């Protein structure tokens, strides 16, 4: 399983380098998204591109793939200078890219989706056969006639990869490929990447999961604020040293609060079921969950398995007829809306900060009113908004969470992702809620902001609150959770103590092996 021992197969290649980007500069308005970035990649090398959000990774990759043109700087392909005018030109050179967000048609089959990306006039039966061969060859099992709508996220990613492989790429660019995979699916992907590398294909691997970078990558280029800060051998680094290079300062380690005896149950779901009326939604089935005072319970799971629906059910954005299926502080409140539940001293942070957690073109102080209007320290009195009170709350959040912004009260959309997430979480934490439910607390957030947010959740629990974290980030879950449950296809596993959970066990539960995981564990891994 350990591909890290591989040496770049192309090191003896005559050309030496496959791709070289020299002194790339890309300017958007006043922002220098790439500022003199240089990157060199050999055939057969898995090269990590690391950096926080906004460091310029995507810009650089888009320039290599031809979707953007650099303001200045040159690209060299196998030692020859080239202009990559558009993605089609990149594909002609032999550059393939697997995007983080897939562009697939749900109503079409695997073969039809792939045919759309290839030149017209293909024989479909022939293509289906090729898909079968290539996917079996590289350990990416796919049924060519399957409808995309019926496939898991991991299988959809395979379609994208196979689509690239059919064009026999010399360089494969992967943008955060494991963000949507279970640990087992990720392992499978690493095997495929290892094989590609051995065959001499270069891989440019974008990720913020440092452990996996250490595991599979031969070389790493690290960007910060658009500038090249280091080129390192990930094998010689620790995850902490890589994180420090990315952030540019020491990332504060989170002080955990594990090992306390939890108190009385504050949040309970009892045999909770809810059918969805959204064709792309997920029905929740018979969910049982208890979060006690003084503990963090985490719900792990691959995106799209009912996390959003679970959040809505607890927050009261969806209400249920079965009143006693939801209990806050011991009182049945399944029929209460979100405002009534907030008055029970519960607070909620949704997954999407823009458009759900905050209104993008409202100022921060107006966004304070969004969740404080029925509670809090007099933000609304007699139906009138007290702007001074809202400003005061905003100032308090800014101070507690180190929210960086150009002016004291900018529009929410002007903040970077990490800073807006600190604001959205901070807005609830300053209320000192007894119950806090957070969906994806640090999704797409830089390491510095993530540490601050996680620490705030832990401090809240120390003060006797109950916190439920819904997250796809297993590192985060193991860092902060006292107990872990796994959601899969709308069903939730028992929440077990974190120390009893392994990555393998969570992976099996993610894949849907509920409760029987212990018995069938070994057979499922080999499947």
């Amino acid at each position, binding site marked *: 399983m350990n591909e890290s021992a591989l040496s770049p197969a192309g090191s003896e290649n005559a050309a030496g380098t496959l791709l070289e980007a020299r002194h790339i500069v890309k300017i958007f308005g006043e922002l220098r998204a790439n500022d003199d970035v240089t990157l060199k990649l050999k055939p057969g090398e898995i090269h990590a591109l690391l950096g926080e959000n906004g460091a310029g990774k995507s810009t650089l990759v888009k320039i290599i793939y031809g979707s953007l043109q650099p303001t200045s700087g040159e690209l060299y392909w196998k030692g020859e*200078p080239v202009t990559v005018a558009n993605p089609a030109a990149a594909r002609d050179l032999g550059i393939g890219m697997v995007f983080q967000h897939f562009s697939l048609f749900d109503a079409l089959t695997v073969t039809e989706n792939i045919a759309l990306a290839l030149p017209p006039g293909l024989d479909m039966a022939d293509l289906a056969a090729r898909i079968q061969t290539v996917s079996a060859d590289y350990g990416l099992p796919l049924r060519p006639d399957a409808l995309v709508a019926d496939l898991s996220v991991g299988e959809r990613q395979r379609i994208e990869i196979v689509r690239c492989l059919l064009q026999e790429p010399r360089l494969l660019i992967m943008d955060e490929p494991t963000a949507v995979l279970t640990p087992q699916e990720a392992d499978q992907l690493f095997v495929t990447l290892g094989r590609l590398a051995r065959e001499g294909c270069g891989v440019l691997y974008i990720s913020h999961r440092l452990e996996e970078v250490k595991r599979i990558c031969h070389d790493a280029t690290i960007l910060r604020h658009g500038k090249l800060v280091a080129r390192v051998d990930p094998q010689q680094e620790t995850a902490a040293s890589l994180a420090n290079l990315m952030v540019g300062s020491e990332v504060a380690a989170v002080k955990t609060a594990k090992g306390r005896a939890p108190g009385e149950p504050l949040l309970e779901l009892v045999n909770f079921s809810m059918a969805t009326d959204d064709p792309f939604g997920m029905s929740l089935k018979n969910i049982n969950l208890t979060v006690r005072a003084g503990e963090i319970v985490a719900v792990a799971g691959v995106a799209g398995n009912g996390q959003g629906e679970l959040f809505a059910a607890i927050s009261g954005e969806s209400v249920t007829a079965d009143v006693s299926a939801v209990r806050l502080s011991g009182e049945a409140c399944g029929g209460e809306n*979100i405002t009534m539940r907030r008055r029970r001293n519960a607070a909620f942070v949704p997954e999407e900060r823009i*458009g759900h957690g905050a209104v993008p073109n409202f100022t921060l102080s107006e966004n304070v009113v969004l969740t404080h209007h029925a509670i809090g320290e007099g933000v609304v009195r007699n139906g009138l908004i007290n702007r001074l009170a809202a400003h005061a709350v905003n100032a308090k959040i800014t101070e507690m969470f180190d929210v960086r912004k150009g002016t004291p009260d900018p529009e929410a959309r002007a903040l970077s992702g990490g800073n807006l997430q600190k604001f959205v979480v901070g807005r609830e934490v300053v209320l000192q809620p007894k119950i806090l439910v957070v969906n994806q607390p640090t999704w797409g957030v830089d390491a510095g902001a993530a540490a601050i947010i996680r620490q705030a959740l832990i401090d809240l629990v120390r003060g006797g609150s109950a916190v439920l974290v819904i997250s796809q980030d297993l590192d985060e879950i193991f860092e902060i959770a006292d107990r872990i449950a796994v959601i899969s296809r709308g069903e939730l596993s028992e929440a077990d103590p974190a120390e009893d959970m392994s990555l393998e066990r969570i992976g099996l539960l993610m894949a849907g092996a509920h409760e029987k995981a212990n018995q069938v564990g070994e057979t499922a891994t080999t499947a």
Partner: protein
Amino acid sequence: MKLILEKRSEQSRAMALLSPLLAIAITVVIGGIIFASLGLDPFKALHVYFVEPVTSLWSIEELIVKAAPLVLIGAGLAICYSANVWNIGAEGQLTIGALFGSAIPVYFTTWQSPLTLVLMLVLGGVGGALFAAIPAALKNRFGANEILTSLMLVYVAQLLLDWLVRGPWRDPKGYNFPQSVPFEGWQLLPLLGEGRVHIGAIFAVIAVIALAIMMGRSLRGFEIRVIGNSPRAGAFAGFDQKRVVWFSFLLSGALAGLAGICEVAGPSGELQPNISPGYGFTAIIVAFLGRLNPIGVLFAGILLAISYLGGEAAQVELGISDKTAQVFQGMLLFFILACDTLILYRVKIVSGRPATAKV
């Protein structure tokens, strides 16, 4: 060389105020070109159109008479559009409001008391609100597009008015003209001063102030803006989108209905087949030109009233159709929507192709 639109990180406040002024300027320039192409002296024509209406006491009074309903309706529509609720049927709500209020003088011809007028005004508002409740109910219950339903109901209302004044409500002593009995005494709005200005103008100012406070300070106004901007964030805040649809339709309908009864109990003094020169439609432009802000609507209403007077003046002095007013109003709406792009985007000129790697 090419022009590109580049997104700003925040909405530009300066541009939000500048955009209507820019739109007015472009409208005037294009208007001048249209006049010139008609063989008229563009400067004289524009002077007749935009300046003369504000040079005499008579015309200023007439301006207020025309601005009052525009402001009253436009303020209500501004609230509606802030909620992302597209009430295009204010003209119909105005008509039904006028009918409801006129039922009193038609059926109780001799009832004279201050209460007569109060009841007429209340019925006007109720009628407009009830008529606006139809598209609101259709939207909330069936998801029907309110732009279509509210617009089509305008023609229902106008045909109903037409039938009533030619049929059951026709004045028996009116020599078969399609009009109701003439209103008198407490069936008419009190006048302000000697001219034609009536207390409808005061209603408009009160509505502007009340709605400005509601939108700027109250939780209700906040709710409307949140739902209009981001319904999901509104649901997260605990606001009910359907309630906002009801509220904004009923409010704008009531104000349009009030404007309707003020027209028949004011300048007309009776019901006729044509009680409004399209105030309900022009108020849409007023709402946008006023930045969906009640105070802004006050100024925008006055400006659009000038375009009505200018149209009449142009007909008399220049011998061109008074439909020119509608041309100007249409251009103004067109340009203001175009200029609003600049609130969130800035125009940049890029010279040549961006530098690329040499081949």
